[in-house]
């Protein structure tokens, strides 16, 4: 059985945004659409302030609320645990976006919006619309680079171990703060980290059983 998941070590994250940029590049994401974010918080008062960095993305919950509330069946949970959106079925009602308690979905409103307004699309944007066409008027979100994982598995590679089969944000991290693997395998690196480092998911009270865990300092 496979349940793809991720562990993020908050001790190692330096807030460089490499994961955010890598995700943007990998999926040719348009302006204002982010599948991976760094949420920056702080604690303490001047002069003793600590900056707190939280890389966040879709948690690919085992009990995904977005899948339950979707009226068309566009949001589905694959057998390997990845939650994806079928853009051809999505009707753009925004119910999944509002229902997600982690706010990790985005409504793709305007396909004509350019990164450099008034200057036309860049070559990258043009290529992106052909290679990775998102549909305007649908909900979009992180998919754990499912295309990389599927392609890698077809080639006999191991996601989380082999770079070509691992999500872009994981391999882009210079601090190696992200670990990707099969949470259903108790001996996989993420599973061992969750057990040894007592990693925890955000907001367990939502009873969504996320597949994204965090190691605190």
């Amino acid at each position: 059985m496979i349940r793809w998941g991720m562990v993020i070590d908050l001790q190692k994250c330096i807030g460089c945004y490499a994961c955010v940029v890598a995700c943007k590049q990998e999926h040719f994401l348009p302006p204002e659409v982010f599948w991976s974010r760094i949420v920056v918080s702080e604690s303490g008062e001047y002069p003793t302030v600590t900056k707190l960095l939280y890389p966040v993305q879709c948690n690919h919950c085992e009990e995904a609320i977005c899948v339950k509330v979707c009226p068309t069946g566009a949001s589905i949970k694959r057998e390997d645990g990845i939650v994806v959106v079928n853009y051809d079925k999505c009707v753009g009602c925004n119910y999944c976006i509002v229902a997600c308690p982690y706010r990790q979905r985005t409504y793709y409103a305007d396909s004509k919006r350019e990164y450099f307004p008034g200057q036309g699309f860049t070559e990258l944007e043009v290529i992106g619309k052909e290679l990775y066409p998102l549909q305007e008027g649908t909900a979009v979100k992180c998919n754990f680079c499912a295309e990389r994982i599927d392609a890698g598995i077809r080639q006999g590679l191991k996601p989380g171990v082999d770079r070509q089969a691992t999500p872009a944000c994981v391999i882009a991290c210079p601090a190696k703060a992200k670990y990707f693997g099969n949470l259903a395998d108790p001996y996989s690196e993420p599973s061992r980290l969750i057990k040894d480092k007592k990693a925890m998911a955000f907001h367990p009270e939502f009873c969504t059983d996320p597949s994204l865990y965090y190691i605190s300092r």
Partner: protein
Amino acid sequence: MSSRPLHEWMVNYTPQTEWVEGKGVMFCLAFFSIQLGAGMFFVSSIFGILLGEFIGWLICAVLGGGLHLLHLGHPMRFYRMVLRPKTSWVSRGLLFVVAFLIVGGLQMVFSSRGISSLALLVVANILAFLTVIYGGFAMNCISGIPFWNTALLPVLYAVAGFWGGAGLSMAVLLNNGVSAGALPGVGEFSRGLLFVFLFILPTYLIAARYGLPAGKASVNEMVRGRLWLLFWIVVVSLGLVLPIGVVIYSLVVGLEETPFILLYLSITFELLGDLFLRYLILKNGFYNPLVPAPAFYISGKNAGTS
């Protein structure tokens, strides 16, 4: 996009925007129209006001349905929205609305031809009732927004829908020359619902305020935030106090002596108050901060909640 500073996104209480800003305003209006229309049909059919049934049906179908379609990113795919009634309240709602429009339409046609069908009337009213209540449940099941995630919200919306429907039914009768004193029970029904609403609204707000912190933040923003004027003037003063004043006046002098203009004003402002209440509930639906309190970051304790 919310007007809050971006750096506060999910660090502080973050409002939802998809169902209330930009195109989302149509969603707010659609929910209001559908529940008002179905409520009007329900009340009118009970009191035998055929024109009221028709107007309610039209409000639901044209205004409510049309606005819902305009809100969608791909309106031509709307037929797909009935595919998940087992888990999705939007799916169930669309089924209720479509069934209500069909059965309600048939019931009106039969009534207009003098054909009485109790079974059809009962089914139409059940479907109208379900149409009125489904919106509250669609919002209530969103656990990420504590202000909505309460059993009182569907009750509040249902009472508001029926109250608005009763008011509009009254307006139809008054417009048709029925004197205020001869309103066949719909006036008392409307008054009763007003007092129920008067009890439920503060109960809902108080319960939310003493619930989770995000709920408290929602209530505080609603009654003391940027839009406090909307709440206190439109929702409370015009939408509640004025109708109560008219009711008390009509009880003192008698409904026959109550000027029509007062009754029309009361109905208009109660609808306006209902609409803006729904807008404010959508506008002030805050999510809990995504990130935990600093203690989690340091020690791993108190994880998950802030």
